[in-house]
């Protein structure tokens, strides 16, 4: 490292800024921020490339394919924006860091296996919940939707339990 990275924003400042960004999104679009909706569309598109007939007849992916061009959607542009915003922020603050980030007792290979399994659980869970931490937890919670708070309760309880069972992964 030649220069040291600039500090993260204090949580209150970041939370306030995130709230303003979320409020602006509600006023522009009528809905909140998201992320997993893009993954759903990407998965439907990949499935269509690999197995067009099975995808078209699939109850869940089929409607995305019938509507045509699953990736041509607001959520795709939003996720591209997230990539741009995070890249510019990390670069300009010296916080870009090419690495396999992991706990001190976890090997690189183990970390990638955990990342894949964790990602698969999250991908499956987001479809069940009809949204992810951003779409239903943050955006749903901000509208005081009961669904948002049920989601957040499940998220935090499971997070603490699994973290205790898998302490070695990060500590």
């Amino acid at each position, binding site marked *: 490292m030649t220069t040291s990275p600039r500090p993260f924003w204090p949580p209150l400042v970041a939370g306030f800024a995130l709230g303003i960004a979320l409020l602006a999104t509600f006023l522009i679009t009528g809905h909140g921020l998201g992320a997993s909706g893009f993954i759903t569309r990407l998965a439907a598109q990949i499935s269509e490339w690999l197995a067009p007939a099975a995808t078209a007849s699939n109850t869940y992916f089929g409607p995305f394919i019938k509507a045509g061009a699953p990736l041509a959607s607001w959520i795709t542009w939003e996720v591209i924006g997230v990539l741009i915003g995070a890249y510019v922020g990390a670069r300009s603050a010296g916080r870009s860091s090419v690495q396999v980030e992991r706990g001190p007792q976890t090997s690189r290979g183990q970390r990638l296996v955990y990342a894949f399994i964790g990602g698969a659980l999250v991908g499956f869970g987001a479809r069940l919940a009809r949204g992810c931490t951003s779409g239903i937890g943050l955006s749903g919670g901000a509208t005081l939707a*009961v669904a948002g708070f049920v989601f957040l309760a*499940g998220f935090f309880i499971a997070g603490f339990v699994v973290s205790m069972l898998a302490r070695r992964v990060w500590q």
Partner: protein
Amino acid sequence: MSIPFYDGGIAGGLLSGILFGYVLEAAGFGSPRKLTGQFSLKDFAVFKVMFTAVLVTAVGLYLLRLGGVIADNAVFIPTLFFWAVAAGGILIGAGFALGGYCPGTSVVGVASGRFDAVVFVVGMIAGTTLFAYLFDPLTSFYFAAKGPDAQRLPDLLGLPEWLILAALIVIAMGGFVLGSRLERARGGPFTAKDVCAPEAGSSDETSASHPTYALKA
């Protein structure tokens, strides 16, 4: 011209996303160690940032409605399907604790150089595809225990919205104070220096337990 604009265009999507990504990165949410530090109680950034953002937006929407700027039913409110939403929250909490990210923060991880975030995204695509091909047997679970359409806490509890917002602000403040105390007791929170060095994972233990670290917090 009425607000919201209900604009689903490219420019608005990019703008929302750029703000979202920039703020998440600045909060430190590209780092899976900082994110999962929430569940070892070493770093309360996830709770603090999320709770603050929820309340800023919730109070903002409330005031805009009171002032007549937006209508009562102006924004999208998700409907509860109790079992699916609870199970989904549990799976995402479990996957987050194990894999280090949620969908939005994994995109930030990718943009700030984390290869593990790329693998996490591949895992999400696999999990989503598995769900789609299991959707038929899961359908009744997916729609079970449906709540009233777009139900909100004021409807559920029969209390005025200002009172709920005030109670949430008090809970948030209590959580902030308690969280900061727990962070300090565990040598947290994680700083940019701790988590943004290339391949910091292997040599991190020494810096994380270094005494100056706790003072910075």
